[in-house]
């Protein structure tokens, strides 16, 4: 089991904030994907000093595996406290793995309106993509085996673990 300590994560977040100033100039709005993505988004939102409140997306109803694993027991409803129409959105998640979460998040965002653009920012970009999804702003790249999982715990302090499924 490998870990990434909080101090290291803070450094990555600072770099991501710098990259975001280049990648999404103007007045973007930020949306985090529950749960880990929201923790990362809260930090980035503060670092970038964004004025519009942070949006929180819960993609449980948009997952593509409802027919296999059923309904999530308790879903905190999504809240996008701004009009999505014509906004430049920074979409934030903790880990980009298969790409299915991002697919679900994009579908949900479009149910609220038509954004001008969506920029994807992730703390960890790991191997194992199953869909044509890529992030523009990346904290750290990791090459992991199929059985390995990245687990973020938080919100205070943030810590990252790499677990191997038995």
């Amino acid at each position: 089991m490998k870990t990434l300590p909080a101090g290291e994560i803070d450094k990555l977040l600072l770099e991501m904030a710098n990259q975001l100033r280049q990648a999404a100039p103007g007045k973007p709005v930020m949306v985090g994907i529950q749960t880990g993505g929201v923790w990362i988004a809260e930090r980035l939102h503060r670092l970038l000093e964004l004025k519009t409140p942070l949006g929180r997306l819960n993609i449980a109803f948009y997952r593509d595996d409802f027919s296999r694993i059923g309904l999530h027991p308790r879903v905190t409803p999504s809240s996008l406290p701004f009009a999505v129409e014509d906004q430049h959105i920074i979409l934030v998640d903790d880990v980009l793995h298969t790409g299915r979460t991002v697919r679900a998040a994009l579908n949900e965002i479009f149910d609220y309106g038509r954004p001008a653009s969506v920029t994807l920012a992730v703390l960890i970009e790991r191997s194992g993509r199953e869909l044509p999804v890529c992030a523009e702003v990346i904290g750290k790249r990791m090459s992991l085996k199929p059985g390995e999982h990245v687990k973020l715990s938080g919100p205070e302090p943030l810590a990252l673990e790499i677990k191997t499924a038995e």
Partner: protein
Amino acid sequence: MNHNSLQLDTHGRLRHFLTIEGLPRSLLLDILNRAESFSGVGERAVKKVPLLRGKTIANLFFEPSTRTRTTFELAAKRLSADVLSLNIASSSTKKGESLLDTLRTLEAMHCDMFIVRHADSGAAHYIASRVAPGVSVINGGDGRHAHPTQAMLDLYTIRKHKGDFSRLCVAIVGDILHSRVARSEIHALSIIGVREIRVIGPRTLVPRDIQTLGVHVFHDLASGIRDADVIIMLRLQSERMRSALIPGESEYFNLYGLTEEKLALANADAIVMHPGPINRGVEIDSTVADGNHSVILQQVSHGIAVRMAIMAMTMSAPGDYPAEAADEVNN
């Protein structure tokens, strides 16, 4: 009858939703929590989530109903299912087709769920015991027996306004004898664990053995609603008038109609509920129905979220929801 052998699977998950009776408290809370998750969907630009996309749901209404049918319909549509609403009261059963034949015909159209409302008690059970595996049945009201989704949306409404159930005194007023809503309500409230359940009504409209369900019986409205936190008014059905169980509408209103003066006897922050449709001036005064204690219209909106939750749960996959998936998702 052991209802749960039919409505729960071997892991205790909801397969059909037929009656509240015998369901564990944890499952009722599960339904309320899930309804909470769906509550925001109606306020979005696109009032839909794709959970039941590709599923076909048939509303089988053997008995006329507007609000129950439309809220079920809307709930199904907000889950992206395709919905058929069949008013069977006026179609093939009149031509002599049996219930089972109607069912087989709809099964041949590959429906995944039936919402059943029927004048006979036990109709939804009967259908649930005969549908193909994988097809779910939800009881939208059967005879005098049960109306479980109404009871759940009332619990949801009570929790929204009052929070902790254990402190509450709930009074149910009116025709208890003929009311499937009252029956489901009493089961739901006692499973969830409120402090006190009272039923209030004329002797002719309160079943004699109702105390066995753990309720306190009152025949006088004023003493019954004293210090109540929640007042659930029931609709007086006009057919009861014809059978001479009550003397007349105005007499009934004088004794059991909820007016401002009588409401003042309840707790200052009491809420007034009614499953609808309301008879103004019969069981409830207009000033109360439209007043600030009334949550009658909120009950309707909550009905959609609660029905979405129940539909999604019964259509949910047979597999266990992995504990890790709650936060880890599939990234």
